[in-house]
């Protein structure tokens, strides 16, 4: 029976990792895309150039699909804390539950309330109000990110609480300390930039695909395609270096507040100064050694402490039962960093092409940009794996163990739900991805809303929604 309990616990963890891992892609996509749409509509209103409206109408279709998937996968998260982690939710609910409620009230309602106007209201409310609706949706996505990261950061670096001696509940003492906990600002900036960067590369890849297609068909690419590609590459060139800077600052913060996580990320076992930076290796949790290690001398200390003889923590500093599983985060961290550097290089390369006026004419560069489509999302996922697995074996760092957070749910229920979630997510989000790819495979057109209704474009005002006539019009008719 003990064994069944352990399997149920593992399944609860796997199920949460799976559902949250799928979910996180959509809010990141929404955050970046909503901001992009607000910029496009703002530019259209300011300049009156048709190309911005065309791009707005092109990307809003993708946004509606992505947003829908984000809502439904997020709904699962709101209830999964209770179904799978009931002990955690009972103990930490007075803090994390309250933060989640604020997210719902300040962000979710705002996004949902104005999304309808944004998607279907262009001909109903006038340009100014419609732009305001787009901005509300965009600001809503940012507010939502802020609350959820406050909550997550509190679980990583808890502050401002007391523990009730009677039942082990976390009692909030100081809400400002809870929200503005030590890792919150770093995480917020890092995640925000990651969302913008991911969408920049997704948009850039779409542009690159159409540039390549136009070239293959021997025609000149259209203006919307060029504007889309150029804007995306500007974002990549600006955001990617900023992100590396932010990531470095976040690393210093982790060294200070979660040294065990950092040691596991680095694959370091002994605490030492003048530490090397391992480029490769396989951390072995049993022998307490990193096998096949290839490192650059001194670089570890330099990166982590910004000094050559800075002391870097090792995992042997911590009792065995308080060490995060190093192999997973050792690799996820390295993949994230490698992708980050790659994105920065592509951004710089685009500047070079821009100077030589070859931004729209270099097929080699377009192919690279196309291959980079998932780079931002992959890096983002790897970053989350690093930080979340790195928090183990705790749900609330140093205070509440993951093994003590799980619900008293029997194994059979966990097996059923795990299977159902995997099957349903593969079918639903797989279909969503297919729809998205096909949708973006169609080139944005001039006067985008007049596009062929057999394509997805009729989600906009043209077909479905003139269906909704004004009350006044109905009375007049």
């Amino acid at each position, binding site marked *: 029976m003990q064994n069944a309990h352990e399997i149920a616990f593992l399944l609860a963890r796997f199920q949460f990792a799976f559902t949250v891992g799928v979910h996180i892609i959509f809010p990141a996509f929404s955050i970046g895309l909503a901001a992009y749409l607000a910029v496009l509509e703002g530019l259209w209103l300011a300049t009156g150039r048709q190309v911005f409206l065309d791009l707005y109408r092109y990307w809003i279709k993708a946004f509606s699909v992505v947003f829908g998937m984000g809502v*439904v996968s997020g709904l699962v998260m709101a209830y999964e804390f209770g179904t799978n982690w009931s002990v955690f939710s009972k*103990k930490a609910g007075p803090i994390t539950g309250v933060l989640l*409620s604020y997210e719902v009230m300040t962000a979710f309602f705002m996004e949902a309330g104005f999304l309808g106007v944004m998607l279907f209201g262009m001909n109903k409310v006038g340009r100014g109000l419609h732009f305001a609706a787009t901005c509300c949706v965009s600001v809503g996505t940012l507010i939502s990110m802020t609350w959820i990261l406050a909550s997550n950061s509190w679980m990583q670096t808890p502050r401002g609480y007391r523990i009730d001696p009677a039942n082990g509940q976390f009692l909030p003492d100081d809400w400002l300390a809870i929200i503005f906990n030590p890792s919150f600002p770093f995480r917020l900036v890092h995640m925000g930039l990651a969302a913008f960067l991911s969408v920049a590369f997704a948009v850039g890849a779409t542009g690159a695909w159409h540039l390549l297609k136009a070239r293959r068909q021997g025609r000149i690419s259209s203006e919307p395609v060029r504007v889309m590609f150029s804007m995306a590459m500007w974002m990549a060139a600006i955001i990617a270096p900023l992100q590396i800077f932010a990531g470095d600052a976040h690393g210093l913060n982790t060294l200070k507040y979660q040294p065990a996580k950092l040691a596991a990320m680095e694959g370091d076992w002994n605490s030492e100064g003048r530490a090397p930076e391992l480029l490769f290796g396989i951390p072995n949790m049993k022998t307490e050694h990193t096998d096949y290690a290839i490192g650059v001398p001194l670089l570890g200390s330099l990166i982590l402490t910004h000094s050559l003889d800075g002391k870097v923590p090792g995992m042997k500093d911590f009792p065995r039962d308080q060490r995060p599983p190093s192999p997973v985060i050792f690799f996820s961290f390295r993949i994230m960093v490698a992708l980050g550097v790659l994105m920065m290089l592509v951004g710089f390369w685009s500047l070079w092409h821009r100077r030589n006026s070859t931004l729209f004419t270099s097929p080699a560069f377009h192919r690279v940009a196309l291959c980079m489509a998932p780079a931002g999302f992959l890096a983002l996922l790897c970053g989350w794996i690093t930080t979340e697995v790195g928090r183990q074996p705790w749900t609330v760092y140093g205070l509440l163990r993951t093994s003590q957070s799980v619900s008293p749910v029997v194994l059979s229920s966990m097996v059923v739900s795990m299977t159902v979630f995997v099957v349903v997510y593969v079918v639903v989000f797989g279909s969503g991805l297919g729809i998205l790819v096909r949708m973006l495979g169609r080139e944005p057109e001039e006067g985008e809303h007049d596009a062929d209704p057999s394509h997805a474009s009729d*989600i906009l005002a043209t*077909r479905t929604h003139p269906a909704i006539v004004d009350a006044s019009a109905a009375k007049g008719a």
Partner: protein
Amino acid sequence: MMDFAHWLPIIWAVILIAAISIYVILDGFDLGIGMLFMLERDETRRNVMISTIAPVWDGNETWMVLGGAVLYGVFPGAYATLLPAFYLPIVLMLVALIFRGVAFEFRVMTRGTPRARHWDLGFMIGSAVAAFCQGSVLGGVIQGVKVTDGAFSGGSLDWLTPFTILCGLSVMCGYALLGATWLVWRTTGVLEASCRHWAGRLAIGLFTCIVAVSFWTPLLHAPYLRRWTEWPNILFVAPVPVLVIVFGLLLAASLRKGHSRVPFLCALGWFFLCLSGLGITVWPYAVPPTLTLWDVSSPPSSQFFQLVGTVTLLPIILTYTIYSYRVFRGKVSEADGYH
């Protein structure tokens, strides 16, 4: 401070009941429309049905997220006990809502391909299953949950009984009625006429369900029976069944006379009464028959911090929700649908 700790959970219970009621009414009619897809096979009319809810369904569902979040933050003891107790129906409901939620976008995006039919099917079945699960969870709460030391200690199928199945079917029937009367209000022509017809049938079905659940519920636990039959309670609760009959007669008459808005309002009245009846029955238990509101609530500091935000934000939320409904008000006609 003692007083404060006593009153905060009561205030929160009222807010939570209000949020659940708003959810049930708003998502109720759009889940109902999903079920009515089974009765309406015509593609054009289905598109009109969808058009009446496409701009607002997402906001409707947000009330459910709010319900979960408030339970989590303010009544973590109830959240942590009820969710494991209803693990399977909740997971099933979430999966059903996934299919139904993405169907709004996917059925449009895949139009013209055979897959569009699949998403219509996903929309129908998802709506029906979600409604059934919500009803059976509600029934399961009334029926009671096995608790030891403040945590759920029952089996994974404890929730599944004849009573909860009846509750599940009742909610399906009720949502379908809300959907039908909503469409009577918001559509024209053939669709409006057939919705009028369905609404009549569904009203009879729901009335039967209400009567059955009302007679069954007091028999589940002795305190429930006392609540409804003892003097002077009976004085305060007697109007509930009387009003159910009044709204029923009004609903039937308004459907016959061709009113467009009144049937929906009557259906809302029924829902309001049913939820009140439910509240009267289980009060002050959060997890019947063992844990009261006070047993499961957060420390007062959490409840107070959240109350400040809620009191400020809810009026704003309601304002722009009403605004967005007003933007899309008015009848949707078939002629304006798909050419």
